[in-house]
């Protein structure tokens, strides 16, 4: 049977966290009542002229540098001409051809222990479009609040130049987006919200017979609003294409929309004509010229990036690479970790609690780290209680959940719920005697050399004490009591 291999390209759009729009002074903030954030410039009214938002340019330079790109010394804007009501001007101001702000970069990803440097072709600046609202009846509604918000586009390069790689699986595509998001949120140019659409990804996907150099026909995917959707959408599309090809069919170059509920992609009505955008240099804007020294200053001013932080976590704090990778995926996560380590010094237990219980609770409740009531000192105070033997590791799980849900302190929760660990022998001995009395057969097994059965007796004791007994103490007392029954 013919075998195929995937080639995946990623086009990512990131709205920039500026105060105002790209070419006018309307606020760039998310939301607002429809059409309340518009002016003659972003409405494309005759006689209005755009002026470049300097912050947006700086942000793209920053991002391009963080993505290991070179900065194009002379960068210009272009008009992309098309008639579609998502922009009122009849064109989008974008950057075309060989003059985007940044070019030739890469993002490092690690999937299943294998590290790849994914090649980036270009990073450019453009304006976002308005929102089309589909309503009942024969009309569509348009809200131009988002029209003109600074938008950065980041495109991968396939095939990659020597020394760099391309994305070849859904897992790698997801990881690329995870790391890209981490970088953009670290440097503070984008808020990374896939659900709100401030970070959007449109992968293009194709299969080629193994051994063939030319790429197969690709399809583009839209409407991937979460990391899970990226993963599922690409996986679905790869399977669909493989089925078509194995049956001797042909892939049609088209845009397909991911339906998260149905778990399938469907063709969006293909355009009657291939788009002809008739790009030309935007005459209303001046070219950008970047001074080499200024670019160097920007590079030096970059904050610590996720990969650097990851290495520091591994080398200085001694946590495993896998933990370091997850903890540096988001800046709030990494900062929580670092703060907690400062307070407690035990990096490994902090990491364990974050990787386990914290991530689980964040996911289960759909909470973002930065909205969580839990602070680093909550965690380290609880770790202290474990260290002092006030609570057991098992009880700590209950305490942790309670802290996460209510924002109360560990000591307060322990006191209120009576969760203090039982370390008093005289309190435990009657319970242990009762467990031994109730399980004569197990007692005989253990005494007969079946040491594994001891775990059952420990479990019973923990049950009677609602998990509050100190496990090493229970073990020791059980052995002593058992011996006395020999």
């Amino acid at each position, binding site marked *: 049977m013919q075998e195929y291999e995937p080639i995946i390209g990623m086009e990512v759009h990131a709205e920039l966290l*500026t*105060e*105002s729009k790209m070419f006018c*002074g*309307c*606020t*760039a903030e998310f939301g607002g*009542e*429809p*059409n*309340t*954030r*518009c*002016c*003659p410039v972003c*409405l494309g*009214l005759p006689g209005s002229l755009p*002026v*470049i*938002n*300097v*912050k*947006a*340019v700086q942000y793209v330079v920053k991002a391009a540098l963080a993505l290991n790109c070179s900065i194009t010394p002379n960068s*210009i804007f272009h008009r992309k*001409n098309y*008639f579609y*009501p998502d922009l*009122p001007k009849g064109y989008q101001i974008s950057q075309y051809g060989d003059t985007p702000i940044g070019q030739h970069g890469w993002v490092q990803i690690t999937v299943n222990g294998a590290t790849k440097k994914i090649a980036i072709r270009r990073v450019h600046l453009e304006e976002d479009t308005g929102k*089309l*609202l*589909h*309503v009942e*009846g*024969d*009309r*569509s*509604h*348009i*809200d*131009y609040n988002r029209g003109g918000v600074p938008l950065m586009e980041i495109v991968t390069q396939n095939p990659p130049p020597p020394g760099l790689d391309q994305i070849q699986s859904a897992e790698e595509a997801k990881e690329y987006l995870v790391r890209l998001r981490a970088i953009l949120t670290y440097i503070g140019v984008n808020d990374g919200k896939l659900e709100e659409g401030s970070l959007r990804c449109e992968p293009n996907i194709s299969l080629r017979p193994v051994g063939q150099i030319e790429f197969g026909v690709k399809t583009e995917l839209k409407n991937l609003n979460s990391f899970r959707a990226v993963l599922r959408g690409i996986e679905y599309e790869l399977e669909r294409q493989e089925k078509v090809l194995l049956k001797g069919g042909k892939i049609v170059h088209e845009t397909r*929309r991911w339906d998260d509920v149905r778990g399938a992609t*469907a063709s*969006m*009505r293909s355009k009657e*004509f291939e788009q*002809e955008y*008739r790009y030309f*240099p935007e*005459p209303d*804007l*001046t*070219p*950008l*010229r970047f001074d080499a020294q200024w670019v160097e200053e920007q590079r030096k001013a970059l904050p610590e990036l996720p990969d650097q932080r990851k290495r520091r976590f591994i080398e200085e704090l001694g946590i495993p690479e896998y933990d370091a990778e997850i903890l540096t995926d988001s800046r709030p996560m990494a900062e929580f970790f670092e703060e907690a380590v400062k307070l407690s010094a035990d990096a490994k237990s902090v990491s364990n609690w974050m990787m386990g219980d914290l991530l689980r609770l964040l996911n289960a409740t759909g909470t973002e780290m930065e909205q969580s009531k839990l602070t680093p000192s909550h965690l380290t105070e609880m770790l202290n209680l474990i260290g002092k033997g006030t609570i057991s590791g098992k009880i700590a799980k209950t305490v942790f959940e309670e802290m996460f849900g209510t924002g109360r302190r560990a000591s307060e929760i322990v006191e209120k719920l009576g969760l203090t660990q039982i370390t008093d022998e005289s309190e435990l001995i009657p319970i242990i005697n009762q467990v031994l009395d109730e399980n004569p057969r197990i007692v005989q097994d253990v005494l007969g050399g079946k040491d594994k059965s001891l775990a059952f007796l420990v479990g019973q004791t923990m049950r009677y004490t609602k998990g509050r007994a100190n496990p090493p103490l229970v073990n020791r007392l059980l052995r002593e009591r058992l011996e006395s029954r020999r």
Partner: protein
Amino acid sequence: MILSREDVSQVAFLARLELTDEEKDKLTGHINNLLQHFAKLQELDTDAVEPTSHVIPVENVFREDKARPSLPPQDVLANAPESQDDCFAVPRIVET
């Protein structure tokens, strides 16, 4: 003939111009006349010349990132051919 009548129809389509057959014929002639002048210019050897994107030597004209009040909504929609529920209304666009 540099552009065919079909090319002219396509350009008209892209610009959303509805042309009669006579107009297409007439404009095909006009455009080709115009393009002949450019064909003359094309004869020049410009290999050593950087493409010109802007004719005025001005660079890096920026505005500060400061938000300013937008137009009142009624002014935003004042020139809309049609509006509904504070939105611009256009003939239905089918997306899927």
